[in-house]
């Protein structure tokens, strides 16, 4: 089951400068695990210390946000595209 994971420009330096990486997976969670097993430097930019996806990191299967599907258990099929899109957040703090 080959799934294409699109790598956002800021993270390509941690993924062999690739625009996309093909992985074998049946769920989004497996796809991202396979990706971060291959490119371990990606992990800290996608996941927080507690192992959860960072709040500003959004993942889509084709055009569907996995938060509104089955999250990391969202199934993926051969030929699907997984996209990682950040929300840009910040602010002065207090």
């Amino acid at each position, binding site marked *: 089951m080959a799934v294409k994971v699109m790598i*956002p*420009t*800021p*993270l390509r*330096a941690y993924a062999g400068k690739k625009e996309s990486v093909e992985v074998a997976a049946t769920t989004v969670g497996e796809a991202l695990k396979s990706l971060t097993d291959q490119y371990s*430097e990606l992990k*800290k*930019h996608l996941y927080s210390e507690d192992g959860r996806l*960072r*709040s*500003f990191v*959004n993942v889509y299967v084709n055009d569907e*946000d996995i938060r509104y599907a089955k999250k990391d258990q969202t199934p993926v099929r051969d030929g699907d595209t997984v996209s990682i*899109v*950040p*929300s*840009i*957040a*910040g*602010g*002065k*703090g*207090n």
Partner: protein
Amino acid sequence: MSGYVLKLRNDLAAKIQAHGMETYPHECCGAILGRDGDGSREVLDLLPLANRRDDSPRNRFEVTPGDVQLAEKTASEKKLELIGWYHSHPDAPARPSEFDREHAWPWYSYIIVSVQSGRPREMNSWRLQDDRTAYESEAIESPAQSASI
């Protein structure tokens, strides 16, 4: 010193300041479009965006994933790259907060403009370190007139 340099024309810097004045006392935000070369990065256009943090716009900003995708598409149509983001800090210094750090990625340039009592003050650019522990300053330079043609 990090060695990072961001070239930013005065008219584009003025546009960021004007956006910060316009939304004061709320934070403004927008996308930075340009070109990233070996050791040299230049801002060539800006895409002002709406601050989606309706609940706390005085000290927070948010660009939704939809707006991020819009910025990427706009950059691509203009044959540019989405190289970073700008936002304002109303009545606060142009330094990244802890909240900024937690929500950033490396590589992007993050321009912050301080707006004090409605007037723009200093503007700084920052890049998150690879290990996510801190930002490095990115020097903002105005490109030479001849280089912008």
